[in-house]
């Protein structure tokens, strides 16, 4: 069987599946990418599906099924009631208003069959009716795929740019923050201030997004890992250039970089692992041949105290984030502070160890935080003064707070990244 025949068979399979579901459900909505050419499972199809998975929560369907075959990935939304008329209007609106709406098919079926579109869709290239162009092969599939690729990448670039920005700012704007830099204070970092952090943020952002796009490549191998390392290094270089040599976000580049690469892998193919498992694999592959023998504080901490630091967090698949993220019900400052304190208590933070200089003080600081009453502003201010007075800070915890906010935001955007098998959430 050649590829075209396999695609046709896949399409038929999906139609039969829909028909089968219509025995038990009154309405089925099918979401799939509108991808020309022979590769229906290209990363673009998956990115498009992900971009529209917010529909799952918008439609409030009883169940869904996420699957793929040779005709590409698709999501079926299942409803017990016949709401086809109502939902068709919503689908048309989404197809017509979403910037990627032209590249997906959202079809609505009820027991009488599918409801047809009133207006025929326009061709992406020449504005004629799309069917006419297709029928006479007016444009090559490359020509069309190029447009889809450009627009899809633009969409993700802007979304990621916005979400990285919001995630870093969520942490940076939190005040008071126990010695970390805030809009009003340099905390325990006399060499830094708010404006400098903003400069560092803006410098690293394009490179972090670059890691996302690089990781869309299908081949996960040594050369990809090498490229990721190089992009990470160039993010550091750009940061140091922008800050005059001050290290504001080196740890964040590492952690957020791994998470965003894992995100790219998760949503650009039918991935059976959750984002934490993918992150763990990337982290392990990145530091595989690392001996912890440098003179950096992190390496010394490992040799002397067995403290892995934030690197260990990534190597474990962000085990503390997996628990901590449940605290992130919203992005209010009270919730963010609660999560920051959770990380201060639970993670191995070499920034703290470096500044505490002593493992006993390191442990007793953590103990103080575990006794902190977050409803008492008085206690918060006291502990804040104590940390600044003793020149303490919590860079690793701050990084994980940014990572957590980012994870929550990308999860809200598309498919459920926290569970295996790529099953979208309801």
């Amino acid at each position: 069987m050649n590829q075209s025949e396999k695609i046709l068979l896949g399409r038929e399979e999906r139609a039969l599946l829909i028909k089968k579901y219509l025995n038990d459900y009154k309405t089925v909505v099918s979401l799939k990418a509108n991808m020309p050419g022979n590769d229906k499972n290209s990363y673009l199809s998956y990115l498009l599906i992900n971009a529209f998975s917010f529909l799952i929560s918008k439609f409030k369907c009883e169940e869904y099924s996420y699957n793929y075959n040779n005709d590409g990935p698709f999501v079926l939304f299942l409803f017990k009631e016949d709401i086809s008329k109502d939902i068709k209007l919503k689908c048309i609106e989404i197809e017509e208003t979403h910037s990627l709406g032209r590249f997906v098919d959202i079809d609505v079926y009820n027991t009488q069959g599918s409801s047809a579109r009133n207006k025929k869709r326009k061709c992406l290239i020449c504005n004629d009716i799309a069917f006419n162009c297709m029928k006479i092969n007016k444009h090559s599939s490359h020509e069309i795929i190029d447009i889809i690729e450009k627009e899809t990448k633009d969409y993700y670039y802007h979304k990621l740019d916005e979400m990285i920005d919001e995630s870093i700012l969520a942490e940076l704007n939190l005040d008071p923050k126990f010695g970390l830099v805030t809009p009003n204070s340099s905390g325990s970092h006399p060499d830094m201030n708010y404006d400098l952090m903003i400069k560092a943020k803006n410098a690293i952002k394009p490179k972090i997004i670059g890691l996302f796009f690089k990781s869309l490549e299908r081949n996960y191998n040594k050369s990809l890992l090498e490229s990721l390392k190089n992009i990470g290094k160039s993010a550091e270089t750009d940061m140091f250039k922008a800050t005059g040599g001050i290290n504001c976000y080196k740890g964040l580049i590492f952690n957020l970089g791994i998470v965003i690469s894992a995100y790219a892998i998760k949503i650009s193919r039918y991935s059976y692992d959750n984002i934490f498992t993918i992150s763990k694999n990337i982290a392990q592959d990145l530091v595989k041949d690392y001996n912890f023998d440098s003179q950096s504080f992190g390496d010394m901490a490992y040799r002397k105290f067995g403290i892995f630091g934030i690197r260990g967090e990534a190597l474990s698949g962000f085990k503390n984030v997996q628990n901590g993220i449940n605290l992130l019900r919203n992005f209010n400052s009270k919730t963010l502070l609660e999560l920051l304190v959770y990380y201060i208590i639970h993670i191995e933070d070499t920034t703290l160890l470096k500044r505490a200089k002593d493992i006993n003080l390191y442990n007793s600081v953590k103990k103080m935080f575990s006794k902190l009453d977050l409803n008492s502003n008085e206690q918060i201010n006291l502990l804040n003064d104590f940390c600044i007075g003793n020149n303490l800070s919590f860079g690793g915890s701050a990084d994980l707070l940014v990572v957590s906010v980012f994870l929550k935001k990308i999860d809200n955007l598309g498919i459920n990244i926290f569970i295996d098998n790529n099953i979208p959430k309801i």
Partner: protein
Amino acid sequence: MKGIAGSKESNDCLITIESSVKRKIEINSIVGVFFYDQILKVVEDTLDEQGLHNVKVIVEDKGALDYTIKSRLLTAIERMREDV
């Protein structure tokens, strides 16, 4: 004896074929105004190739390419022949 193949999704077609006393072809296409003759030719040529004369074919077309129509028809024929 009857065979069905395809779907009513956009860019596809649903084809039903069954034995009949003479050849009968029915085409419902969303692009029928422009492409009725072209679709009819694909169906007739394919039936000729297969040596099928006494069949009734119904094509419900949602803008399928010629290749798709031919492929769906061939599958429907295959299924008809298996349907005893």
